[in-house]
């Protein structure tokens, strides 16, 4: 499947996240990634190891930075475990995209002429 390599290829990636997002602490931390996205989460609490203002984007299930920087009186700071990131628009693949490929996914691309 063509998109498999883009979406879910397992790659051992050594990511070095320097300072900053880890709350401004000096030095660096080394993360051994076993997936293309090491920032998986289900709630904001899962993201606290990255930064105090990190939030869980529950649609993507990934830690992201909350923008603008979180302040007590800022809007959208969450509290519902969603990081204040709601989903107001979606494309319904189940209704509009046929998943009739050989493995129950997308069809392979047609062969070039």
């Amino acid at each position, binding site marked *: 499947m063509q998109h498999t390599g883009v979406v879910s290829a397992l790659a051992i990636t050594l990511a070095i996240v320097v300072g900053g997002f880890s709350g401004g602490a000096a030095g660096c931390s080394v993360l051994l990634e076993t997936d293309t996205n090491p*920032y998986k989460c289900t709630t904001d609490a899962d993201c606290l190891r990255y930064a105090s203002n990190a939030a869980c984007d529950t649609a993507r299930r*990934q830690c992201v930075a909350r923008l603008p920087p979180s302040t007590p009186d800022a809007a959208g700071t969450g509290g519902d475990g969603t990081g204040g990131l709601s989903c107001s628009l979606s494309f319904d693949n189940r209704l509009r*995209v046929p998943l009739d490929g050989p493995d129950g996914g997308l069809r392979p691309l047609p062969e070039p002429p």
Partner: protein
Amino acid sequence: MSGVRVTVAAVLAYALAPRSVAAVECATLPIPVYVTGSTAAKPLLAEIGKVMAAQTPPATVVYYGVGSCAGPDAILSGTPIVNTAVGAFTYWDASGVEVKCEISSTSGVIAHVGISDVFASTCFQLPGGLPASVTDTLGPVQAMAFVTHKSSTERAISAEAAYYVYGFGAQSPVSPWTHDGLIFRRDDVSGTQRMMAAAIGVPPQRWQGTATTSSGDLVTRLGAANFPDQSIGILSAEVAQDNRTTVRILAYQHFGQTCAVYPDSDETANDKVNVRSGRYPIWGPLHLFTRLNPSGVPQNAKAGELIGYLAGTRPAPAGLDLVKLEAQRHVIPQCAMRVRRTQEMGPAMPFAPQSACGCYYEKVATGTTACKPCATSAECAATAPVCSYGFCETQ
């Protein structure tokens, strides 16, 4: 590695073309710095070119926009840039006026800076990465988007749907995008198409649909579509937002996701909040390539200076507010980003830039920000303790 394709026909056409007024020879301009590649960089180069032309001594940014993959090619392989059309080379004088110049030598000139919308590895096979003699400095970030006719009732598209639309064309099973003549694409050397290809898993050479010659051409054709709902195209967010009266940006839902998002917080906003946080996935930095000397510094000092301005690693000259300029051009300076990536469509990793400018970016891009204005860090609370660009930032 393929070089920049210059057809015999194009060279002959140029050689035989009538010239009413002889343009100045580029090489005679003060300290010419030759820049080639992506056309997306031109508005920024115009401002920097104006400032560098007013410096003492003056330098001249000579620009030749041909497409993303020509940028790294010019630096990696040293493929000379040559005149393929009258007026192909542009520079800016100290008052900011755009002027044409010529390179009469048939052997062309070697570019000092190559600019690309995409990673070099997206254009070429580079199993060992870039050679040590070439550096790729990351500049402002731009998003790419699927777009449709302004009157379309469609609001979103998923990666799965886009895979079918651009991978199958007229055989697309995804309604309403089933007409090859209304599925607009660029070409396989376009940075926009290459980045989108990486996003949806359709190799750029295998895209179906109707080819367009430029982003402007795509906007024109999309705007003229007789059946708005069935029309679709790809553009940088910059071009799409400049043409909001003609095209509509579709919210994008990546593989396996259930939520579609815009680059901005909504369809009409200009905050790029979903790009800056990594929530909108199709984005990448402008890549600024140049050759290094054995000491690891740019061979051409003025090229290094130009790259430093564009990347924000060198203080902008007086009178040049690059953050504001980039906000107006719908691109994002690195100092306003909260994520970064090291490969095309790779994972978005948390990023905390030094001298953050996210608040100032929001202010100039949208006219408002929730951040606290400040003159010194003493005025900032512990949650955002650093006064940067006039606002309290976390760093």
